[in-house]
């Protein structure tokens, strides 16, 4: 079963074509890593999947069901409202710049979704939050405010916050690019744990070690298109397109 599938997904910002006929599939249990130069449209692709951006045309399927079909900027077919809301909650999102809620403690950040959105009882939400904080190694920071945490810790809280909604797939948009080098490892190790527990993941990242170790598939994007995809070995060792060769040479 595929968790996410796009068909000819296009996205324009005004006259600028940012995504051009993107066909991407992420199957259940898969870890897919997206790489590509800055401006390739990687963030826009993730943001289109969870409707932070409205697409210009194409189809998005979630768990093999049509989520949305858009033509020339107009939604032609869509899931019913309730179904749509539920489908979106199946996607957890982790941003480059964390975006924790600064007015809430670490624990409150994690339990906000379960408590206010899923409306589960406070005690239960709290229990879930503490379990997740333990999982990301931050149980002792539960009552601190995010501003008192390092970037690496904040990103781990952001992962816990997304996991608290019990998603089917986690989207990561360069989760370690805003971090000091010495803090990257702790975030990657949480992501590796998640992958080993079978979480379906779609990650934009340039951490090649991570990609080699956990990715089932690497997708190379440039100029709004998917130019190549394959196993980490195929992409890293024998890139076919000149653009991919050039890009890999620049980051290695």
């Amino acid at each position, binding site marked *: 079963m595929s968790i996410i599938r796009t068909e000819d997904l296009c996205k324009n910002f005004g006259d600028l074509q940012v995504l051009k006929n993107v066909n991407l599939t992420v199957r259940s249990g898969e870890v897919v890593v997206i790489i590509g130069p800055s401006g390739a449209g990687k963030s826009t692709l993730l943001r289109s999947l969870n409707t*932070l951006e409205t697409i210009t045309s194409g189809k998005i399927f979630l768990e093999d069901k049509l989520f949305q079909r858009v033509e020339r900027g107009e939604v032609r077919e869509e899931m019913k409202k309730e179904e749509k809301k539920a489908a979106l*909650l199946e996607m957890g*999102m982790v*941003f480059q710049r964390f975006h924790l809620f600064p007015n809430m403690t670490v624990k409150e950040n994690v339990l*906000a979704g379960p408590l206010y959105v899923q409306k589960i009882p406070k005690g239960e939400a709290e229990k879930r939050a503490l379990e997740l904080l333990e999982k990301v190694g931050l149980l002792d920071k539960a009552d601190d405010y995010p501003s008192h945490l390092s970037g690496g810790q904040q990103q781990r809280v952001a992962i816990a916050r997304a996991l608290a*909604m019990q998603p089917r797939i986690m989207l990561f948009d360069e989760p370690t690019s805003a971090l000091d080098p010495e803090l990257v490892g702790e975030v990657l190790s949480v992501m590796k744990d998640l992958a080993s527990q079978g979480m379906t993941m779609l990650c934009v990242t340039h951490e090649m070690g991570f990609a080699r170790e956990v990715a089932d598939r690497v997708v190379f994007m440039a100029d709004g298109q998917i130019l190549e995809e394959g196993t980490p070995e195929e992409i890293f060792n024998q890139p076919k397109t000149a653009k991919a060769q050039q890009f890999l040479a620049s980051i290695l």
Partner: protein
Amino acid sequence: MNGMTRILIWMPQLLKGAQTTIIITILSVAVGLILSLFLALGKMSKHAVLNRLCSGYIFFFRGTPLLMQIYFIYFGLPQFHPALTIRSAFLAAMIAYTLNTAAYLAENIRAGIQSIDKGQFEAARTIGMTGAQTMRYVIIPQTVRRLIPPVGNEFIMVLKDVSLVAIIGLADLTKVTRAISSSAATALVYIPAMIIYLVITALFQFVFNKLEKKYSVYE
């Protein structure tokens, strides 16, 4: 009688005037604050009618003199329709100051909300919060912190603007001071009166500094 004794004799009247001034200030800013939240949300809303209504309101109350607004509410409205008569000058003043301060506060609230990082709205959305939930749990608590200084400022502005209520016959601190000054034929009374204004201002500042500290825990 020496100066000190005279001041002591005037004191009860001055404090009575100060009481009127303080009550109008606190009540109108407090009620205005609630009204202003709706005005700010309305002005930011995509709903065209709501948006124009709130923008127009803010434009009107910031664009016309407060003095005229007070006159109009107390003396003008009854001429349009008898049902609009407000018998109590105090109530009329309260209404005028509340409506006026709400317009100014609404602009502060709007600026406060718009200064919040777009990422906060997006993060709230990805965990499924509705727009109203995002406002209530994420945006407004963060805005409150940023609003404390401008709201404190508004208290101090209104405190002094309340001296206009004399025109509809209310005896606020300024009015009482002028009355004493003319009947006792001395300007001495202005000194204790100004000190009272400064003490009230200092109290407002004290409270708002405390609030600011309290709401800064997470920064």
